[in-house]
């Protein structure tokens, strides 16, 4: 039996709780320090902050109405008046990119949120309860993992139809099985650790243990994985948009802008150049932040990279 921390005197419970809080604070400070020391991660965080500002304030800071078209000015190349040029309907590309940020980034955030919440829950349940529940969840996961993520998303969209909600659902569902596998493995690991065995011996309920003991063990890995997935999801969502399987037409989602603009590539490359740069930058930022988080939160991976 692991008897770590048994020699706790009863007099100092308050002290110990204060010490635990202090230790947690110190760990957080250490993680923050490590993250800050990583130049790439800081740069990524800056780009992300910028993109988030665009996503939140989009319509208020866009110089023009992203939907207002003016066919007389269609496909105008970049100029002082419209720095990124105009698209096939004469709409200002800069304004569309600014307003589009909330779609492209919003879809990524929402689908990763959906995938991680459902996936973490099912992974915890599957790993903690084992037996029949586990077998059923794992067989379904096996089947879903047999589809590459993009192809599963495409299949789901093909049935559900296009639109922001369906896009979020399709990508979210496609990422669930990966989270289930990840969290189930970590849960099995945590289950054999002293703190869980002790809690079970004390008669705590399964959900209490999962929430209080296993979830904190699982969370750092899930956060790191999610930041990578955000980068990946931006690419998938815009890819689906590019294929015409994303949002409905006038919506200025970046991938959809690429998809509708690609016919004009030969004579008016500016139509596709700028939305692509924004997709690249956002995905890059998520990956940089992911690297920084991995080093800061996961001591094992950090040691390995030294």
């Amino acid at each position: 039996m692991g008897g770590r921390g048994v020699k706790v005197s009863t007099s100092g419970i308050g002290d110990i709780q204060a010490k635990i809080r202090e230790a947690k604070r110190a760990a957080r400070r250490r993680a923050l320090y490590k993250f800050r020391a990583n130049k790439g991660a800081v740069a990524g965080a800056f780009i992300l902050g910028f993109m988030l500002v665009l996503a939140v304030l989009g319509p208020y800071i866009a110089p023009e109405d992203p939907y207002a078209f003016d066919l007389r000015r269609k496909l105008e190349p970049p100029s002082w008046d419209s720095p990124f040029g105009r698209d096939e309907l004469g709409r200002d590309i800069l304004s569309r990119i600014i307003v589009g940020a909330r779609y492209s980034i919003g879809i990524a955030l929402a689908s990763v949120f959906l995938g991680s919440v459902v996936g973490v829950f099912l992974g915890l349940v599957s790993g903690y309860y084992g037996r029949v529940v586990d077998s059923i969840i794992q067989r379904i996961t096996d089947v879903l993992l047999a589809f590459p993520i993009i192809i599963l998303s495409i299949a789901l969209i093909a049935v559900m139809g296009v639109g922001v909600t369906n896009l979020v659902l399709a990508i979210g569902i496609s990422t669930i099985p990966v989270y289930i596998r990840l969290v189930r493995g970590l849960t099995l690991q945590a289950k054999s650790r002293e703190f869980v065995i002790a809690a079970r011996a004390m008669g705590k309920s399964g959900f209490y243990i999962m929430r209080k003991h296993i979830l904190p063990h699982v969370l750092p890995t899930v956060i790191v994985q999610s930041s990578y997935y955000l980068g990946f999801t931006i690419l998938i969502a815009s890819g689906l948009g590019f294929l015409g399987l994303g949002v409905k037409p006038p919506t200025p989602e970046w991938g959809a802008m690429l998809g509708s603009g690609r016919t004009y590539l030969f004579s008016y490359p500016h139509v596709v150049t700028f939305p692509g740069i924004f997709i690249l930058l956002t995905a890059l930022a998520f990956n940089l932040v992911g690297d920084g988080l991995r080093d800061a939160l996961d001591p094992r991976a950090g040691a390995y990279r030294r």
Partner: protein
Amino acid sequence: MTLAKYVAKRLLQAIPTLIGVVLFMFILIRMLPGDPARLIAGIEATEEDVERIREILGLNRPLYVQFIDYMKDVFTGDLGTSIRFGTPVIGEIMERLPYTIQLALVSEFLAVILGVPLGIMAALRPYSARGYLATVFALIGSSMPIYWMGLMFIYLFSVRLKWLPSSGADSPSSIILPALTLSLLLMGNLMRITKASFQEVLGENYITTVRAKGLSERIVIYRHALKNASVPIITIMGIQLGTLLGGAILTETVFAWPGLGTLLIDAISYRDYPLIQGIVIVFATMFVLINLIVDVIYAIIDPRVREQLWAAEE
């Protein structure tokens, strides 16, 4: 236990997953709201058309009978009839499949012959500009929207320089741009992993033994280090297969490459559900099979894995 037996066993194990895949697609298509036959036929279709579709899909029978029949059909190679073309789905797929396989293989090949040596170079000189380049390249590679990069390639190499065709598969040089685009998606990660695993392996004691025997650096690197480092490299290639197949759909669309990906996108715009179902099943089957091949390659490379696997299978 021999290798052949192991492969046979793994194939048998893949069957339940594949049945699950077919079941999943079957349910998914049945989840279309409203009368599937009417939906598939379109609003302008006559009542006879709808009836014909109902007949084709066997929608007038109980659900489980429909599924068992469909299952039987799938395992005998009959994936149904395309609504748009009126021809067997399997025929349409077989016509396009070679193009997708060709694109995937050439891209993987390009990624390996460029990514692995670059990764090795970076590992041998970790503090040089090259070592740094590998890290940056890997990062950008995994953040790049390849469909956009494909468009940029077309603009540069087809529109501006007029070196290469921008679309289709009419001349042998047609494959260069799509394959290059798709390979760059894989190359970054491949480089990063090659660099990391080489650095780790070159620090191992058995490498010192090889040097101490008086073997040349060429043999140290290309025989011992490469074989040992190839295990994590192959793992990454396995993990990337999903990316490869998904990326193939996007790349094919950008370059109008006549593979399964463009067929799938067309099928979706024509609501050709039997065809969609068939293509997705074929993609999933390919994914499962290639993963299986990766496992077999492990067993061939590493005697320890081989023994473990075979012991577990006994």
